[in-house]
């Protein structure tokens, strides 16, 4: 395992509070995920890849921004692994870096339509940028 990867894996585990070793690899998270088709790496892969320390690959993936935080995987996991927390932790690892915000404030006006509620803006800003 690459050293920075190993450090980052530990960081992800610490931030998320998730123990990927609890996973029994049943794939229920990916069976239930509504954003599955949008993702390059699926929820069960997040768990497996964090366990194996493949953090850089995850950090480079658009999958990070496809999670809906709907908590279906969290709710239904028989081992209480909470994959969504891993997705969030890896995403934070990216957007906490300088200049790595996925969504920038200046992009917002273009995305707005008349009906969009504050809730959507705040959520997106919280999820996609720091």
């Amino acid at each position, binding site marked *: 395992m690459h050293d920075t990867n190993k450090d980052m894996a530990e960081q992800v585990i610490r931030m998320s509070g998730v123990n990927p070793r609890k996973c029994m690899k049943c794939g229920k998270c990916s069976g239930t995920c509504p954003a599955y088709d949008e993702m390059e790496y699926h929820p069960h892969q997040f768990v497996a890849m964090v366990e194996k320390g493949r953090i850089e690959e995850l950090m480079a993936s658009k999958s990070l921004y496809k999670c809906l*935080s709907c908590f279906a995987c969290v709710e239904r996991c028989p081992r209480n692994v909470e994959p969504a927390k891993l997705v969030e932790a890896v995403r934070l690892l990216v957007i906490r870096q300088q200049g790595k915000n996925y969504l920038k404030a200046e992009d917002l006006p273009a995305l707005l339509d008349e009906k*969009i509620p504050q*809730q959507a803006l705040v959520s997106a800003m919280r999820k996609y940028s720091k």
Partner: protein
Amino acid sequence: MNFSYYPGCTLKTKAKELDMYARKSAEALGVTMEELENWQCCGAVYPMAEDEIATKLSAVRALAAAKEKKQDLLTLCSACHHVLKRVNDDMKNNEYIRTRANNYLKLDEAYEGETNVVHYLEMLRDTVGFDNLKKAVVNPLKGRKIGAFYGCLLLRPSGVMAFDNAENPTIIEDFIKAIGATPVVFPCRNECCGGYIAMDDKAAAQKQVERIMDSAVEHGAEELITACPLCMYNLDANATCHKLPVRYFTELLAEALGVK
């Protein structure tokens, strides 16, 4: 019955109806909603990382303010309810977060999760009671076939939210019965509406909405109700083929109580 009330930012802007009808109905039901002074935006999403303390503080302030008033904290928006309930759970059960948050806030008395966070629907069920609500209805919405769209935030994770059976909830259906209409149970009622992904990937959100609408239409719903402004937005603005009218549940409540 007096509650501290946390409206949240969307209810002050794009979702004014959700708030307005809730207040009118509460008044009709003898429930007093005392809006917290100086509340701040809850952040809309629950920050899942253990080291996210600052982003939880506005929720803790609201919770502590309700504690000071010795009142339960009433919520209406699903997102606010989700964030407040989960942060409250952290303050109760996660020592690390509790200590750090209290260190930041320096309240007169440390906040340790004492406040009960109650959603408006829970208030209707547990405080007013659906039977009493039924009696208070002056204008029963007879013959209307209404699908309840729960979404994610009220239900999951069920261990913390403890709102209803997360996979087969009944609270909104019971509400619909109480206001005299016919609930239509459809399987996708606890699926995700697409949420904030609408900002980044409209097509993905549309896909979610289509599936939900299909399911609702197929099972015979003629209109949908929700408690969440973001669900409202997605179901309304991102529905492509099927389009059912979507309303806030409080609007129908006000209608049934004759205070609309």
